[in-house]
């Protein structure tokens, strides 16, 4: 007989794992054993709840109490108070901000209220290492129905087409069309492949990782259905080796699916065969590009090749291949189970459904959010994200990582969808959303993303290999204070050359951060070039520290802390900074008790 009356759900995504959630699980188990309640309370590991900044997160059901930043020493209290006596431990409950009341239901928070979880529907709901739990939330009903009714593949493809689902990897191509092309493609020996792009490489992006860590089965089921729809019997998931938890959960999930006969030969006695294999990438950014990814799966060096031929006609091992992103697959069974009409009712005219974003940078609620398409950036930053911390002013948001652009504050009411973002010079990208406040220098940001692209350029084509490097040289010239106004024109021209002539999306989109900052923050560039000044006080070469003689008491604290001995002066007399020696580390300023050191 089942006597389980309460479930303690502990997040074991990468974020909460790094704040020690696995040890919480064993602590809960020990404490329950001590209370003699191991038979009535179950401790369940689960996926990401989204509030990564507040981890580790523990949810206790049936009350649905959400405890945040739970420490090991809090465990006995939760067990003895909440589990034994039924009294919720209010001091550990999630609070929206410091002064606010504790919330007992996460659904009521601003963070969740504006969200809609489709791709993340099972994250934080099921145990990602249990196929039984996935089946318990109606997992595998779509595959069962399709195989037992022998649904014609064209019917499935039409359903995906009509839903309006577009690729969640960034470019936003119609998923249904991609399935159609691969279905229509002729293969000489009948072999086709299904592949999943889990090579999430944008700095600050962790949507795909979270989906795979929280709900690997939905991706596996969707790939199996895709195999049935396009006529493939083998699938590959290309995932980066830097995601050890996601890799492990995928391995467990594939193993369980094979045990249940939901992968392998003759699935559910239907005669349909489909198998899945993992391929680990070594973390090269370019391998997220589809042709490079497939070259890498084949065992070669991950380099892109020109398209056409497109993967739908000539992909893996020169066979027709369907390649979709993790989040795209995570939407498939929801659409098949709920109907395309319901999916198409969400979002804007040309962008349907929802999009997952990894919120990062200068934002209070760092974490994972899923919003209906068309939600404004303002809602994401202020309502869901809680604004910039420490009362700083929002300056810009970067979407799409190194391929995307910066959205300035003046465009904060832009609805987030594929076409609106492209129209303002950014792009949807895979879903990284980095928030910047007044302390960020936009030239420095452009430089940061460009440095990333220089490092990650595979070097196969000249425009990308040399162009990104030259672009970086020009930007460095500006942040060093040696730039001229002509350089700005050269930068812009070089950007367009790169866009037009690079072989793959890496080089074609590398100039986006430069172009968009140049468009919306030209005044900052001009300040660097003409006034030799960095308005945000970030670019070190343009900074100067000075001691205000009137305020200096001659305490010598700055001189003693200066790592390069650039400060001189006598005790109780004003001190001076030797700007030749100064390395602009800022230690003197942070140590001065009289506010006598200024930066300009």
């Amino acid at each position, binding site marked *: 007989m089942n006597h389980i009356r309460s479930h303690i759900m502990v997040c074991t995504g990468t974020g909460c794992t790094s704040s020690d959630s696995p040890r919480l699980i064993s602590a809960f188990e020990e404490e329950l054993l001590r209370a003699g309640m191991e038979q009535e309370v179950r401790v369940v590991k689960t996926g990401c709840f989204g509030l990564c900044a507040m981890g580790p997160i523990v949810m206790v059901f049936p009350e649905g109490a959400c405890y945040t930043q739970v420490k090991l020493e809090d465990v006995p209290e939760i067990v003895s108070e909440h589990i034994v006596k039924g009294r919720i431990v209010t001091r550990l409950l999630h609070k929206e901000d410091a002064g606010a009341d504790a919330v007992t239901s996460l659904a009521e928070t601003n963070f969740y209220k504006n969200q809609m979880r489709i791709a993340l529907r099972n994250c934080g709901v099921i145990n990602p290492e249990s196929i039984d739990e996935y089946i318990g939330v109606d997992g595998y009903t779509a595959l069962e129905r399709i195989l037992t009714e022998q649904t014609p593949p064209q019917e499935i493809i039409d359903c995906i087409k009509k839903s309006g689902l577009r690729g969640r990897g960034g470019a936003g191509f119609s998923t249904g069309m991609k399935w159609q092309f691969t279905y229509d493609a002729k293969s000489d020996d009948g072999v086709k492949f299904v592949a999943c792009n889990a090579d999430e490489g944008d700095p600050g992006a962790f949507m795909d990782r979270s989906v795979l860590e929280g709900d690997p089965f939905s991706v596996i089921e969707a790939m199996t259905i895709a195999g049935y729809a396009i006529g493939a019997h083998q699938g590959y998931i290309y995932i980066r080796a830097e995601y050890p938890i996601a890799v492990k959960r995928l391995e467990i999930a594939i193993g369980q699916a094979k045990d249940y006969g939901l992968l392998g030969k003759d699935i*559910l006695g239907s005669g349909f065969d489909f198998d899945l294999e993992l391929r680990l990438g070594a973390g090269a950014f370019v391998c997220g590009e589809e042709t490079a990814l497939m070259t890498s799966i084949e065992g070669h060096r991950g380099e892109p090749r020109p398209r056409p031929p497109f993967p739908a006609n000539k992909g893996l091992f020169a066979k027709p291949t369907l390649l979709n992103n993790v989040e795209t697959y995570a939407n498939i069974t929801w659409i098949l189970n709920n109907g395309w009409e319901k999916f198409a009712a969400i979002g804007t005219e040309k962008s349907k459904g929802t999009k997952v974003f990894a919120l990062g940078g200068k934002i209070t609620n760092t974490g994972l959010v899923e919003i209906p398409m068309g939600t404004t950036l303002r809602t994401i930053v202020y309502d869901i994200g809680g604004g910039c911390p420490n009362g700083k002013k929002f300056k810009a948001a970067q979407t799409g990582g190194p391929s995307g652009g910066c959205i300035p504050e003046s465009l904060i009411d832009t609805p987030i969808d594929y076409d609106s973002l492209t129209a303002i010079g950014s792009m949807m990208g895979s879903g990284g959303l980095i928030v910047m406040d007044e302390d960020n220098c936009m030239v420095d940001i452009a430089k940061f993303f460009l440095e990333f692209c220089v490092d990650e350029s595979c070097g196969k084509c000249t425009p990308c290999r040399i162009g990104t490097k030259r672009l970086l040289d020009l930007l460095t010239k500006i942040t060093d204070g040696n730039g001229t106004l002509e350089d700005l024109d050269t930068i812009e021209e070089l950007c367009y050359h790169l866009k037009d002539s690079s072989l793959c999306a890496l080089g074609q989109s590398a100039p986006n951060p430069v172009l968009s900052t140049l468009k919306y923050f030209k005044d900052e560039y001009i300040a660097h070039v003409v006034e030799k000044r960095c308005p945000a006080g970030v670019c070190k070469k343009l900074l100067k520290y000075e001691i205000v003689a009137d305020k200096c008491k001659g305490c010598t604290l700055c001189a003693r802390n200066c790592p390069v001995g650039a400060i001189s002066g006598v005790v109780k007399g004003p001190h001076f900074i030797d700007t030749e020696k100064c390395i602009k580390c800022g230690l003197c300023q942070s140590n001065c008790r009289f506010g006598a050191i200024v930066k300009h």
Partner: protein
Amino acid sequence: MKSLEELKAIREKMKRQMEVRDNDENTIRVVVGMATCGIAAGARPVMTAFLDEVERRGLKNVSVSQTGCIGVCRLEPVAEVFVPGQEKVTYVKLRPDMVPAIVEQHLVNHNVVTDYTIGAAE
């Protein structure tokens, strides 16, 4: 290798087990007093009986949990039933054999078992 029927059985079983994670407003809550006084008077078999009975009938939207001392130690074991939108009902001096009647009449058919309530005992 599982057959369709086996998958269906797993789905049904897991749905019941995971029911505990739906905390919508319509959930009927049964709270059993499990402080020292309650446990000494035999509250644990009473709670187990509630869990068994709810499971046996496959009731949805019912949660069974425990609490500390409700304050009438002389009437333990005590259980309180909270039906959303109605006043709470307190059952006292419970024995496991009284539980099926409460589950059937109160939780399923929404008729309070007045014989077992605190009003009847006083």
